[in-house]
């Protein structure tokens, strides 16, 4: 049994239609309930909920304060390599892009660690492209223990791995893994993943099951908004969360909602236009809907979004933010911009994001873990 078996019961078109069929009455009923289910979630992300956005935001704000208090966790991505054997239409690291490839060695990683430590971060997200031989388990075995020595909380956003590999990485100090399905629509998924291991929809879909079975503390899921009709794709992410929480009650979960952004490259696939455009207002609606659906889930917002949007959406349900991100390997220790996975919208320093968080009346949390609980 895995989410794949559960997933098969859902029909994309039926779900899509039922979301669009939701009425103001359904939204009002969802808002009035103390605990909300997937049908309520559909109502809350439907067009019928748009006039209720202010009410949703107020509820989302207060549920988030009750659970997470007046705090905001901070993390930073650490890009280790842009080597990639996948061809994905939306990503700057796609193998078809003719760009300078780089994988950091131990000395270079050490320099990045020092630069990150100077910014106060204690929660770091390791990111790589997918390259089994050069950036696979052998590389992770070498880098994870070294990086973990300097950070209490270590997350990863790399290619999906096997359960025993996750268990091994956990023993080396890995705490969290982000693995976004990109889209839950199988044929759209196939259109965007043209070559490489990432073509395997099912293996990716079952990754959170393997993570939970390996005992990884936190599992991050989500869809890349823009590849498919966003409401239905985000419904699937919510259904995925619901399945995971019921099946693996000892794991912690987070959801991300990256919106498709322009990326580098001169491959024929560059300049991908989103199939489904999500407005700022709709992203706020989605954030509030996730919170109203699940008061405990962590909601994470990256620097893909603009400073103005981030500053204003911060109190409405978000629990963690990245700051000062550089998406090219070696980007913290060296200034030169080589190649980015995607463009950063919020280019402020960690210190100025920290100041902004305080000015909004929140306590920036750099550290919320002790490595004694890892492994």
């Amino acid at each position, binding site marked *: 049994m895995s989410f794949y078996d559960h997933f098969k019961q859902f029909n994309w078109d039926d779900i899509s239609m039922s979301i669009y069929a939701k009425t103001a009455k359904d939204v009002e009923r969802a808002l009035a309930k103390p605990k909300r289910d997937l049908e309520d979630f559909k109502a809350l992300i439907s067009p019928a909920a748009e006039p209720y956005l202010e009410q949703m935001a107020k509820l989302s704000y207060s549920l988030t304060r*009750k*659970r997470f*208090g007046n705090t905001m966790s901070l993390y930073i991505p650490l890009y280790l390599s842009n080597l990639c054997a996948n061809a994905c239409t939306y990503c700057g690291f796609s193998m078809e892009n003719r760009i300078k490839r780089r994988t950091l060695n131990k000395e270079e990683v050490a320099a990045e660690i020092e630069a990150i430590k100077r910014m106060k971060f204690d929660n770091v997200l390791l990111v790589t492209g997918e390259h089994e031989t050069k950036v696979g388990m052998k590389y992770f075995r070498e880098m994870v223990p070294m990086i973990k020595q300097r950070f209490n909380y270590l997350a990863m956003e790399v290619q999906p791995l096997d359960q025993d590999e996750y268990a091994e990485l956990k023993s080396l100090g890995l705490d969290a893994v982000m693995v976004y399905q990109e889209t839950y629509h199988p044929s759209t998924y196939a259109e965007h993943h043209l070559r490489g291991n990432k073509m395997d929809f099912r293996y990716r879909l079952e990754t959170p099951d393997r993570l939970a079975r390996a005992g990884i503390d936190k599992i991050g899921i989500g869809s890349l908004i823009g590849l498919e009709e966003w409401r239905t794709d985000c419904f699937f992410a919510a259904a995925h969360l619901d399945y995971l929480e019921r099946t693996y*009650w000892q794991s912690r979960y987070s959801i991300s909602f990256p919106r498709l952004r322009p990326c580098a490259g001169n491959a024929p696939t560059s300049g991908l236009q989103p199939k489904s455009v999500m407005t700022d207002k709709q992203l706020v609606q989605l954030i509030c809907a996730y919170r109203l659906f699940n008061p*405990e889930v962590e909601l994470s917002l990256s620097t893909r979004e603009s400073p103005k949007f981030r500053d204003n959406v911060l109190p409405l349900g978000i629990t963690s933010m990245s700051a000062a991100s550089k998406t090219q390997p070696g980007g913290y220790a060296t200034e030169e911009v080589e190649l980015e996975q995607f463009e950063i919208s919020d280019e402020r320093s960690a210190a100025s994001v920290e100041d902004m968080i305080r000015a909004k009346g*929140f306590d920036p949390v750099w550290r919320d873990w*002790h490595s*004694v609980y890892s492994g």
Partner: protein
Amino acid sequence: MSMLKIGDKEFQSRLFTGTGKFSNSALMAEAIQVSGSQLATMALKRVDVNDQQDDILQPLIHAGVNLLPNTSGAKNAKDAVFAAQLAREALGTNWVKLEIHPDPKYLMPDPIETLAAAEQLVREGFIVLPYCHADPVLCKRLEEVGCAAVMPLGAPIGSNKGIVSHDFLEIIIDQANVPVVVDAGIGAPSHAARAMEMGADAVLVNTAIAAASDPVAMAKAFKMAVESGRMAYEAGLAGQVSHAVASSPLTAFLDDL
């Protein structure tokens, strides 16, 4: 009002506080000071134990509040014991609030791991205050392995639902030979007062103060509620009757026999 004694320490205030969820550390420190609390708990995972200038530790140490490091984040006895040892070494206190929740959604305490960790920590000389369910048998077992107090929950942590475990807390308080501190779920001063009227020895409040619009004023409200509830308990509440008492005694006939 009588003093509360736990382990080797005496407390005038029966309100224990938490340090999480405040919008900044100055507000946290002010709220705790106004609450009159003499014992505040902090998560080992949130403090930098090697830094005496730490945002959370420094104002508490400065205000002379006793530190109660907690093991929040521990999923099993092994993690919790390790965390307690680290906290003792770094903070110089052998007090520990033992929290083990394998479930990150509702943060329910694991009774089996908690009992195992409590037993070991007591053996290692810790003053152990375990956070646990309002389970009367578990509380007796924790007392038997040497815990200095028990901290049963009033309601799910962070829920602000009040004393929903009332009937079980009554049994725990009735049976206990160690102080009973009602922890978790207290959302309003009236809930705290109710716990104190029932005879709880103290309450621990965090979310209800930290997430209030005015945490400092709320801290004061809790201080007053806890004092008033304790005073009422010590004064002896008049018994309640749910029906009218018959005016002619039912047993008067015995006098005629």
